[in-house]
């Protein structure tokens, strides 16, 4: 039996408490608690339910030079996440029970946060035939989210069937909304900047037309649709409309789409090349409003590690994507809390409670009350810090925020009762065995 005592921490209602943890559970929350094990003084810090990411590229198997399940888990813990969801666009693709179970086991073996595999919708991400969705759902990994992320399930019939099929086990299809014919060779947001730079545009309607179609499909077949990385103002409006009609659609926004715009492409530095592309400031404002008012349910990182050589080249040859696990909290505080758009309860919803609910991760997104599993992130809500790509825990350093100043820092992470991040340093496995 191990114990951990968190002293003098503020919770979202503003009160200051102690939290006593025994093994993997919270056993008491209140003033002046005493305990027998390690005590951490958290004066000035805030305790939040551990963050849950529904959109993470861990790259293993296949691209272990970019990230592994272990290094990705470490990056997650550094960012305050106690659960991540591994996208299936690996090599081999996670389209069978075998591959999702491999990722699942690697996550268990890393043992510092929950790693839930997402299964492919179509075999090989080819968009032609359904992957073995039922087998993945029944596997040890208990997959509930399916996505061809990186590619769009563009065939309306396949999308319809996938939405219908996952109703067997109350699954959800997470769509990467990108009409492929409208985005042939697209490099960045279609707009004034792309036009001046001579980079092929990526129109907002390529995203919006798929979202509109899928909303109607989800309504027709009465299944659950989740929209990945919403990036345009028009998408927010469509989702708002769908929710008003009672259609079962949820949506995510990435931290980078809450703060960065296509103006950053002007230097042709592919660190800003991402799918979906950075949009305009109008879109950023609409995304922030959508996240604040509940149209967008969650923040998801789309953490997309790439080795240096995949970004150290000309724009057209570079890979799409940015790492995000370790900067997500700072970006959300900077864009949503510091601006007064959102309060801390809403932050907890979008970073922990809602993603856990959408995915059905039972031990995640729980309130900090006695009896619940101790997945806790301790943050300094006012700490101002500068992002340094050299100090990222991720195996890759393709962050667009290098040198940027953010407000809000993750200080400690507790995963199932174990202090896996202590004073911003990885801290072994605690009471979770590492094998």
């Amino acid at each position: 039996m191990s114990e951990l005592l968190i002293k003098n921490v503020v919770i979202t209602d503003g009160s200051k408490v102690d939290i006593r943890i025994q093994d993997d559970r919270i056993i008491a929350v209140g003033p002046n608690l005493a305990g027998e094990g390690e005590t951490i003084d958290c004066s000035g810090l805030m305790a939040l339910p551990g963050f849950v990411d529904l959109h993470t590229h861990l790259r293993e198997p296949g691209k272990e030079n970019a990230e592994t399940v272990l290094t990705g888990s470490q990056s997650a813990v550094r960012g305050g996440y106690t659960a991540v969801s591994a996208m299936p666009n690996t090599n081999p693709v996670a389209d069978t029970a075998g591959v999702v179970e491999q990722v699942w086991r690697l996550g268990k073996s890393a043992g510092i946060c929950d790693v839930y595999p997402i299964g492919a919708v179509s075999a090989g991400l080819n968009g032609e035939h359904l992957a073995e969705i039922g087998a993945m759902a029944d596997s040890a990994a208990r997959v509930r989210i399916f996505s061809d992320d990186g590619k769009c399930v563009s065939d309306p019939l396949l999308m319809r069937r996938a939405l219908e099929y996952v109703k067997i086990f109350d699954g959800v299809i997470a769509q990467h909304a990108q009409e492929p014919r409208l985005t042939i060779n697209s490099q960045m947001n279609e707009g004034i900047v792309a036009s001046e730079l001579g980079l092929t545009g990526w129109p907002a309607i390529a995203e919006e037309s798929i979202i509109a179609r899928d909303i109607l499909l989800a309504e027709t077949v009465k299944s659950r649709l989740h929209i990945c990385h919403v990036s345009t103002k028009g998408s927010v409006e469509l989702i708002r409309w769908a929710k008003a009609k009672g259609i079962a659609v949820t949506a995510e926004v990435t931290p980078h789409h809450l703060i960065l715009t296509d103006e950053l492409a002007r230097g042709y530095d592919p660190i800003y090349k991402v799918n979906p592309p950075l949009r305009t400031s109008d879109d950023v404002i609409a995304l922030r409003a959508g996240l604040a008012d509940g149209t967008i349910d969650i923040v998801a990182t789309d953490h997309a590690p790439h080795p240096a050589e995949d970004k150290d080249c000309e724009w057209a040859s570079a890979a799409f994507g940015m790492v995000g696990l370790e900067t997500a909290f700072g970006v959300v505080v900077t864009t949503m809390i510091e601006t007064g758009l959102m309060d801390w309860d809403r932050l907890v919803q979008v970073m922990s409670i809602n993603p856990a609910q959408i995915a059905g991760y039972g031990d995640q997104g729980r309130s900090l009350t006695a009896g619940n599993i101790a997945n806790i992130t301790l943050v300094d809500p006012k700490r101002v810090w500068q992002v340094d790509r050299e100090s990222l825990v991720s195996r890759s350093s393709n962050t667009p925020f290098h040198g940027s100043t953010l407000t809000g820092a993750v200080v400690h992470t507790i995963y199932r009762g174990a202090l896996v991040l202590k004073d911003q340093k990885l801290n072994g496995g605690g009471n979770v065995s590492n094998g």
Partner: protein
Amino acid sequence: MKHLLSINDLTASEAISILDTAAQLENLTSGTVKKLPTLRGRTVVNLFFEDSTRTRLSFDAAAKRLSADVTNFAAKGSSVSKGESLKDTAQTLQAMGADAIVIRHSASGAAKRLAESGWVSSSIINAGDGTHEHPTQALLDAFTIRKHFGPTRTDFVGLKVAIVGDIVHSRVARSNVLLLKKLGADVTVIAPPTLIPYGIENWGVAHSFNLDDELESFDVVMMLRVQLERMNEAYFPNGREYSRGYGLDEVRLGRLKQDAIVMHPGPMNRGLEISAASADSVRSVVLEQVSNGVLVRMAVLYQLLAGADQVSTGGLL
């Protein structure tokens, strides 16, 4: 000036200074001796990742007439086809002592990336990057226009220029729009809506879908090469229909102002965007553009490698 990556790198007076230098170089090399010793001992690398005959030959001739050593590197048959990156290729060339790298690349921004990534310290000259810019083409076009409409003028105020054709994919159009505007010309781009760039309203130029509307009003008509492959991407139905709407045929040629000039960056698709009669007419300055190209590229190499102070003292030798 260390690099020439975009027309945006130049002020109007810097652009005019390049044109003045080109004019001086023309005087100096118009006799029997065509070669100047100015860049003796300097190495210019032509790094061409895309097929190009005239631009590469033009830079080659320009560097040689200034007595620079020239190395030509074409991507085909080189290690690039074995997967060597732009970075490695450029660093290899720098290690061989390149003072200037003239780069043509299919990726927009490749020249800027080479100049600003810290990979190499050579001067970089953009000889065409994807669908972005081709600044020396715009400079040679301005030089050609100036010769016809006032060899000593320092702006193009009052000149009406039409740029006709595939604007959206044209680096020539982008650089020309920027430079012509900088010099005060009145620019209209003319193309079917599918080939007009997004947000053209922000470019500070007029645009039209109809070539016949104001044909009589232009001093300069610049025709752009149209790639027939665009037809397969649904930009226009076929060559015949394109030609009917946007080709410079004899009838349209006949409607031009008396002293109007017809330009084309080459290579021309005779019978598509320009008829043979228009291409070969007295109004056509296509071959002048080619000779002016060498002079303007000499001027650019000179200004980048020999230093601008020598220009002000007139010390070309």
